[in-house]
C-alpha cells in the first residue's frame, strides 16, 4: 500500500477530548478537567430559518434560543439534566483514507416524573462546563408528558449509530 494522504482517524476522538488547539491565541479553557454535558428540551416550533429554530446555528444553551423556548413544567429544571459520561471518545479506521470518531453517553437521558404540557420535539446537548457551548441538536416527533417519565434511549456506541460522530471521507 502506497502512502496515502488522509486525516488521521486518531485525530477525531482527540478533537472530542480537546487535545488540539488551532487558535492563534490561547482560548480560555481548562483542558485537564472533565467537562459536564447536559441535555435540555425545547418546544416545537415552525421556524425554518437559522434564526428561528433549534438547528446548526445554535451556539450555546439559553432558556430561549433563536426565539424557541426551553420547556417548563413540574419537576423540570431549567438547563435540563446532566448526561452520564463514563465512556471516552474512540475511533475506528474504515479505510486507508477514512475513519470515524464517535462518542455516546453511557446511560439513557431521563427526565423523571415531569409534566411538560407544551409540545416539545428537540433536545440540545451542550457543555455546561464551557460557557454552555452547544454541541448538537436532536429532534424527534412532538411529545407531551403528564406526571410521567421522558426517556431518550441512547443508541449503540458504534461507528454507524453513536450519538456523536466525526467522519473523514
Amino acid at each position: 500500500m502506497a502512502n496515502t494522504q488522509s486525516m488521521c482517524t486518531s485525530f477525531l476522538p482527540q478533537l472530542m477530548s480537546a487535545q488540539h488547539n488551532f487558535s492563534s491565541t490561547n482560548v480560555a479553557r481548562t483542558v485537564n478537567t472533565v467537562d459536564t454535558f447536559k441535555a435540555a428540551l425545547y418546544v416545537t416550533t415552525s421556524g425554518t430559518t437559522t434564526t428561528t429554530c433549534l438547528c446548526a446555528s445554535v451556539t450555546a444553551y439559553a432558556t430561549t434560543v433563536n426565539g424557541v423556548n426551553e420547556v417548563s413544567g413540574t419537576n423540570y429544571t431549567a438547563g435540563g439534566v446532566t448526561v452520564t459520561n463514563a465512556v471516552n471518545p474512540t475511533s475506528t479506521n474504515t479505510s486507508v483514507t477514512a475513519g470515524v470518531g464517535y462518542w455516546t453517553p453511557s446511560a439513557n437521558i431521563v427526565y423523571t416524573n415531569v409534566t411538560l404540557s407544551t409540545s416539545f420535539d428537540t433536545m440540545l446537548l451542550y457543555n455546561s462546563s464551557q460557557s454552555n457551548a452547544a454541541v448538537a441538536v436532536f429532534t424527534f416527533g412532538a411529545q407531551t408528558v403528564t406526571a410521567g417519565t421522558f426517556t431518550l434511549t441512547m443508541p449503540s456506541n458504534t461507528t454507524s449509530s453513536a450519538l456523536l460522530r466525526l467522519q473523514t471521507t
Partner: protein
Amino acid sequence: MAIITTTKGDIDDSLLQYQTGSLDNENETTTWDEYYLDGELVHRSVHVTLKKSPLTDFVSNLMG
C-alpha cells in the same frame, strides 16, 4: 397490580384505563404509555430511541 404516578397522586393501575402507542420511522422509534381516570389523562410517559445522529464529515484537502 402496580402503582402509577399521576396528576391525582399515586393510583393503583387497576383503577385506571391504559392506552399505549408507538411511532417507528427512519428517525426514531418511540413508544408511549397513557393512563386515564374517568376519561382524564393523568399519566403519560414517552420513550424515544433515536436512529440517526448528526454526522460531521471532514475532508482534508489534497496538497499541490
